[in-house]
């Protein structure tokens, strides 16, 4: 019986590149092709940014089902965003634009640039990032051991929302949009929820729905996660 990797010296790659490139291969990397939003047929001709009253950017791992079933009701799909199964939805009735973004840090800088035209013309922008609870850093972490979710805001003025403290931060498209709005001194409400269940289940979704409703985002009052096939394992 062999033990693969035993005795091998694994030299760590440098921290410089997120997409794991070594110093001696850096100069041979082909430049990236420009990403584009893939518009649905209905919007293919116009492609002009929607002047929304509210732009909601929700980002996290395995967020698509939650986003489409809870937030995208009565909306029309505008385009797919080139980061896994991410998409943009438009609700013409309440002029709410919704970006549902699967966690993909490699493309996040470029996707941010694709969404900035929409963020520029939006009257108000709300970003929400979902992260695993284990990523939350605090000197008093034991206080949160029984919490389903830890809700924090970054520069948010909403009542009852605790401000995120260093060294915590958010990363990704939501962070990019929030940074740009903040730099342009445009209104931005940015939130992060550290949840103990990813993908969200009906219980873990409750703090998320409560926050969204409190900041005026149109959404349903509950969430039913997709049914999973039985694993046929005896427990």
């Amino acid at each position, binding site marked *: 019986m062999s033990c693969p990797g035993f005795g091998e010296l694994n030299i*760590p790659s440098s*921290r410089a590149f*997120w997409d794991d490139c070594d110093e001696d291969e850096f100069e041979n990397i082909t430049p990236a092709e420009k990403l584009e939003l893939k518009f649905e047929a209905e919007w293919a001709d116009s492609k002009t940014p929607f002047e929304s009253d509210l732009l909601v950017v929700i980002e996290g791992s395995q967020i698509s089902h939650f986003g489409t079933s809870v937030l995208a009701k009565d909306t029309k799909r505008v385009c797919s965003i080139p980061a896994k199964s991410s998409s943009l939805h438009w609700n013409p009735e309440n002029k709410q634009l919704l970006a549902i973004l699967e966690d993909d840090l490699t493309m996040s800088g470029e996707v941010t640039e694709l969404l900035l035209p929409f963020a520029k013309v939006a009257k108000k922008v709300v970003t929400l990032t979902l992260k695993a609870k284990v990523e939350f850093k*605090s000197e008093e972490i*034991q206080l949160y*051991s029984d919490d389903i979710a830890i809700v924090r805001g*970054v520069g948010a003025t909403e009542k009852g929302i605790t401000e995120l403290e260093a060294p915590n931060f958010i990363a990704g498209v939501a962070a990019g949009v929030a940074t740009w709005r903040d730099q342009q001194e445009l209104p931005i409400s940015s939130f992060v929820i550290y949840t103990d269940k990813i993908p969200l289940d009906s219980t873990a979704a409750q703090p998320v729905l409560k926050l969204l409703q409190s900041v005026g985002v149109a959404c349903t009052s509950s969430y039913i996660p997709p049914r999973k096939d039985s694993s046929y394992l005896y427990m």
Partner: protein
Amino acid sequence: MLFLKNKSTSLDVSDHTVIIPSICVGNAAQLACDLLIASKQLHRIGSLSHPALIPVYGPSAYQHEPNEKVSSCELYEGAEDKLLVVQFRAPWIARHTASFQSQLVELLKSARRVVILSGSFGFERRVIEESPWAYRASANFKEAHAAQLGNSELIKWKEHTGEAIYGGGNALQLFKAFDEQKVPVMLLFRYLLEGDNSTDASLIVRELNELCEDFLQLRSSGDGSFKLTVPKSWNLLFGNDVTELLF
């Protein structure tokens, strides 16, 4: 994309010393820049965004500027010392790096001098008795700093001549890009290992001060000791305390 707080569309660094960290082993160069910014209480003048940079957003990293929000690439200035420090808070995306690097060089090519800080894997130092420091400098930088670099009592660095600095990220490529533009540029790096690199960071700042004491002036008056301020973003550098429930 350059964003400046004074709404200007260009950055005037013609009489500035620019310090840039590479994203290297142990993040030591970024930690060194953190120490510089916090200790000298430099003011944020703007930021840069680019597809090569993973966007980040969050509370201020420094005590002296509590209302700022962190971003992936921040620009800090010490107007009196004519010092500009670039700080990166995220790793780069390799396939966009060449484009970002050329934009960065274009933005800073009018600088009086550029110092790139970096680190290399400790096991790359082949002769253990040799200095843990190495540098590479352009001809015009060497000429301008002949007195300091030639002072063997003060500077004990080895000149690097290799083709790569393993663990140093894009430091060497950035050095070459500035050198091509005839910008006086020096790359200073330390051989180090992953771990608690806060000590390496303070050593990098001290070593840099030997060369650049005229503008860094980090030595407090009198006894010659250093006074470095640790930023609040260094809290919990290795994560939360281990929960007692484990035991």
